[in-house]
């Protein structure tokens, strides 16, 4: 069994469109339809999660503070 490829937002939406086209064609049998539906719903979840990540509200950080935090973390670790 080949593992499913890791999707980016673009590849996921492209695959969803492909799945819907196949289902719209009416050529998919019951087993294929159910498989496509399962895959499509998984991809919709993935895309929705990506959109949620950039929809919760703008988070602003300063690079100098971020670098200082990382450096203090490294010092603490060493």
């Amino acid at each position, binding site marked *: 069994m080949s593992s499913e490829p890791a999707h*980016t*937002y*673009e590849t996921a*939406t492209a695959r*969803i*469109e492909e*799945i*819907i086209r196949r*289902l719209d064609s009416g050529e998919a049998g*019951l087993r294929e*339809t*159910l498989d496509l*539906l399962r895959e*499509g*719903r998984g991809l*919709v979840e993935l*895309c*929705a999660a*990506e*959109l949620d*990540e*950039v*929809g*919760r*509200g*703008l*988070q*602003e*950080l*300063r*690079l*100098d503070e*971020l*670098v200082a935090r*990382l450096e203090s973390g490294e010092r603490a670790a060493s």
Partner: protein
Amino acid sequence: MSTRPDGIPGSLLKGPFAVGSYARMLQEELRKRARVQLFGEVWGFRAARARVYFELRDGEGALPCSMWRADFDALGLGPLADGAQVVVAGGPSYYPGSRTSSPHFAFDVTAVRLAGEGDLLAQLDRLRKALDAEGLLTPQKRLARPALPRTIGVVCAERGKARDDVLAGLRRRGWAGRVVWAFAPVQDRHAAPAIARALADLAAVGGVDVIVVARGGGSLADLFCFCDEILCRTVALLPVPVIASVGHHTDRTLLDDVAAVSCSTPTHAAEAAVPLDCGRARAALADAAARLDAHGRRAVVDRARALARLSRAPAQHLDRQRVALRQSLRELRAAGRRGLAARRDRTARHALVLARKGAAEQAQAARAATLERLRLALDAHDPARTLERGYALVQDRDGGVVTSARAARDAGDVRLRFGDAAVDATIRDA
């Protein structure tokens, strides 16, 4: 004319003089200076209605210059580009101004000659060619840019319009993720190393999907820090895509050449950093989810209906056959009735034809009998038949019929026509 006020107590200097008269004196003094030729690089050329203005610069200093526009246009040089090296002729001039206009100093130019491309632009061009030859103009353009970055790094001045413009561009996309601000000077000679360091740090902290370098417009001289060789080499080799927005399309910097994308404004740069309109993407995703659900329902319901149809099929088939048989029977009976009627009609038509045929034959026989009668009547009047019975026809020499004895005597010679032939005769009256 205002009265002359007292001077500053304790001052050893002459005066006070009225400023206007001093300004005019200064103007006259400057005009006395020798006319000379100068050379340097042109910056900030602009043409007003009557005069053109520019600065003449080199590494040691600069002079504001102005020239009558008609004289400049007559040279046919066109607008002078920043960095263009020129030789100008003229002398210093001071406009003393007035109560309502500002004074200004300028080198009054009477002639200009282009002396080749400015050192700065030539240097830029050499550097661009060197970077191109090393293949450093393309690596950024090969980097994949995500449609929906989670974290965007932004290098810009801490206080400036560019920062607000970037935020406006992100809002326009409906994007509200994480922004990491890397504030750096964007104009002076310390700018390039600070920007290069900020870019390297942004790439190093991890999680930054794309970086925007933003600055409002300015002359190429002001944007020179974005042509720094070390900065451009840093950007070219950065593993994170950089979107440059540091000037206008007329002022192309080297950073514009090495970056993944070059935009004319910080707002456009922000939109290029988030290619996807998040609002539309959400709507499209909701639509896709709804369509998948609809297919999910149909996949089961439609098939259940199809099964139900199949289970009812045998009974429906018998019913259909029964109906078809009844229909066939009705059609057969109707056809039988139609056949009888047709035969009856055909017989009647035949009888009529026969009757008409008999009447025609009788008429034909009657017509033949009438003809025979007429023929016999005609035969009875035929002179040939009379002659055959023993009569003779008397004719004169001219063929005329002689019907009396006197006429015969008068004629003398006659012809006697019998049934078989004619003979000539002479009348002798006894």
